[in-house]
């Protein structure tokens, strides 16, 4: 004992304690964890303050890294999505105008062409799929979706039977690319766009270029509408609502293409509905006050657990596991 009864902690101790703490932590975080395990951990933590601080430090730090990942915004603005040059749209329009005139000439031929083979593509819950067509068009299918594709020499038809698909169309004025979703028909006018089919309605979001939206029925209930980049349309049987969304909002809605869901002041009810599209185990929120709380962040669409933990930590809620489902509650 030296001055003032000071005890100096032994050197070389910290690394060993940290290793033990890390082992406890990974067992609790990644493996089955019983009440008995918790009792043993509590006893170990009680043994000394050094155990406690080492464990608390790992717990806090690791949760910090998980939250950081959860809040990370994926890089959507890759080169392919950026406008290539200022001249491009102008050139496009000029070329389009010239081609439209020529297209009238081949109009009569179209209807004599035999129907080309139809291909169907579908995804299961939680899956996504990217389909590259022979013309270079890429269709990305979101969870639980189905399209049928028919590519002919003079026409290209796609039917979205259910779910959601993002189209990056290789534009060809002489060969219109037409997507039919329920009672709506969307014709590509040089573009990238998203079509989501719900129970009663169809949502179309244009992330680049233009599309034309019209009724798919012969009665032509609605006049055609032309939509430009940034516009989002929600169309049901009775009406069409056009909204403008910022590029960020649009990019967020397309997060699923990178396996993530992006929430920005999104209610827990809406966030749970989104997660439930991707996962068999459902998130359930019964309390209307909990359902109306909002959350921000980017989450992997298959990692419901991380989302539930974030909701728990950030909003002070509780999680109850019911079979394969999770209930978020106060």
């Amino acid at each position, binding site marked *: 004992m030296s001055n003032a009864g000071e005890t100096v902690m032994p050197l070389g101790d910290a690394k060993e304690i940290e290793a033990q703490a890390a082992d406890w932590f990974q067992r609790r975080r990644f493996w089955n964890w019983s009440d008995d395990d918790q009792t043993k951990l509590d006893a170990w933590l009680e043994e000394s303050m*050094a155990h406690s601080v080492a464990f608390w430090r790992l717990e806090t730090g690791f949760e910090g890294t998980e939250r950081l990942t959860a809040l990370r915004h994926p890089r959507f603005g890759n080169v392919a999505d950026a406008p290539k040059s200022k001249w491009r749209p102008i050139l496009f329009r000029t070329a389009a105008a010239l081609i439209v005139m020529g297209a009238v000439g081949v109009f009569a031929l179209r209807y004599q062409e035999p129907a080309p083979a139809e291909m169907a593509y579908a995804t299961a819950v939680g899956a996504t799929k990217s389909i590259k067509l022979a013309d270079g068009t890429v269709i990305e299918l979101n969870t639980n979706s189905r399209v049928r594709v028919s590519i002919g020499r003079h026409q290209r038809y796609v039917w979205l039977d259910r779910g959601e698909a993002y189209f990056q169309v290789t534009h060809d004025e002489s060969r219109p690319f037409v997507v039919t979703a329920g009672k709506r028909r969307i014709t590509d006018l040089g573009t990238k766009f998203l079509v989501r089919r719900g129970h009663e309605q169809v949502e179309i979001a244009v992330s680049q270029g233009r599309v034309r939206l019209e009724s798919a029925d012969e009665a032509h209930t609605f006049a055609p509408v032309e939509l430009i980049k940034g516009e989002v349309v929600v169309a049901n049987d009775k009406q069409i609502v056009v909204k403008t969304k910022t590029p960020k909002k649009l990019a967020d809605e397309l997060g699923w293409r990178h396996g993530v869901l992006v929430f920005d002041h999104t209610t827990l009810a809406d966030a749970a509905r989104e997660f439930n599209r991707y996962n068999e185990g459902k998130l359930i929120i019964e309390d209307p006050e909990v359902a109306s709380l909002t959350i921000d962040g980017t989450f992997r669409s298959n990692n419901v657990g991380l989302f539930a933990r974030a909701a728990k930590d950030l909003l002070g809620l509780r999680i109850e596991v019911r079979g394969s489902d999770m209930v978020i509650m106060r």
Partner: protein
Amino acid sequence: MTGRSEDQRGESGARLLGEPMNASELKLWFAQEVLPLEAALMQFLQHNWRNQSDIADLRQEVYVRVCEAAREARPDNTKAFVFRTARNILINRVRREHVVPIEAVADVDALNLAADEPSPDRTVIARDELRRLQSALDRLPDRCREAVILGRIEGLSGREIADRMGITESTVSIHLANGVRALVDAFFAPLSDRRGKQ
């Protein structure tokens, strides 16, 4: 842990007005007020202690001592308290071990503990933290990194990681424990040069 130096008793004596804390309050205080100081604390210890292999032990000792004191009475200025405790620990070791002190040990007041540093833009920090985490992940041995990615990003359990990688559960545990330590160290590490230089 019974002994506390007179010096430190004096420190906490000035804070007798502080309320004692129970275990969960203590944990919260440690997580929210002490751990965010880790980057600065590590820099302080590294600057003021010659033998870098002692740093982990010194840090642990600081944490243990401040938590033991805070359990009795919550300090009103956590930052000042943590750094004074760190200085006292270094001084006591110097006395005990008769190592030559580095001048700066006594210079803790120069750290301007009263004023909080202006914090850089939150998004800048987040980007910096992400970059550090990414490089920490990159530095892990391949198999360890694979286990961490499967567990942390793809959300697999330890059992599933073992199946996927075709290795034993105990090996998975070792990889995960090492990965957790490396990521946490990176998370708390000093921000890059931009701030570290001053």
